[in-house]
């Protein structure tokens, strides 16, 4: 995980929050994680492919999600319905899109996938061998966790999608056979 990927996302998130909610965000402590994480109530996943590849996840509580869409759309939401979901997913889309423009300026061209939304606290999400950089962003609406599991693409994978299964080199000592 290259720390150079971090700032484009933090800047993009700040720009987008200022534009959409007129609220600034405060960045909390950054942590590097390798294990699977337990999802927040709402997680938006967007993949990147190109010079940099991996997945970006935005996690928040339902309350924060609702507060965000209420502020963005200037209407009240009683439940986290389809419109609210679509609003939060779109926020993820715009932040990631904007971050990808900034990444491109830094020399890493990447395209982003459409968003997927996972709801349900307690499921675990694993980016497998990708380390994740976790950045909490806070404002009056609540806390939004941005998790970046990104790497510079290996050259061959830019043009070649088929990756053959490689036999595992080491066996896990914890595994019961």
């Amino acid at each position, binding site marked *: 995980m290259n720390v150079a990927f971090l700032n484009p996302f933090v800047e993009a998130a700040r720009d987008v929050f200022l534009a959409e909610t007129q609220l600034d965000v405060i960045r909390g402590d950054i942590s590097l994680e390798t294990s699977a994480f337990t999802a927040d109530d709402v997680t938006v996943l967007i*993949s990147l492919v190109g010079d940099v590849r991996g*997945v970006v996840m935005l996690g928040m509580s339902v309350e924060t999600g609702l507060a965000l869409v209420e502020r963005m759309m200037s209407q009240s939401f009683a439940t986290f319905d389809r419109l609210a*979901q679509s609003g939060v997913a779109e926020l993820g889309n715009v932040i990631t899109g904007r971050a990808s423009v900034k990444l491109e300026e830094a020399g890493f061209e990447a395209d982003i996938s459409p968003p997927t939304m996972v709801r*349900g606290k307690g499921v675990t999400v694993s980016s*497998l061998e990708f380390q994740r950089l976790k950045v909490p962003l806070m404002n009056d609406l609540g806390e939004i966790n941005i998790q970046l599991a990104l790497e510079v693409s290996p050259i061959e994978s830019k043009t070649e999608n088929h990756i053959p299964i490689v036999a595992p080199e080491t066996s896990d000592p914890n595994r019961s056979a």
Partner: protein
Amino acid sequence: MNVKFLNPFIDAVFEVLNAETKLEMERGALSLESDSFVTADVTVLISLVGQVEGSVFYGMSTSMALGLVTRMMGEPYTQFDSLAQSGIAELGNVITGRASIKLAEAGYESTISPPTLIEGSDAAISTLDRPRLVVPLESELGDLKIHLALRERLDVHKTAAELRTPAAPGLA
């Protein structure tokens, strides 16, 4: 959801499972869903970006996942540990990679993302405005459900952040 994106995945899944696990799969009835779906124990998520874009999900029970990894690796797995997780994610990767080659032959170039693994049942996954074509596959080890939420590329995503408001006519 364009049905022509379906066959490349079905062909790829049969070819890969046959090559890697010698497992006979039988296809059940297709369905088109637009609401969010409730996850099975293990879900592999891979996105496609290119002329065809969206997400593909491979959902299965833990016992199906263990059965598949046991056959792939040729040694028994009783726990869904990190090696088993990596094996299942890789299986999704190989199937999707192979399907993407077939899609490219049909005129839809795409690049696939690295896999993400979602563990835990009863989470709701939504592909928002993209309906999903659901393909259930049955085998003696258990069921594998493939969800395809794909569409032809709309040129709005990345550029959405760059869009400028058009100048109002008459204002210099």
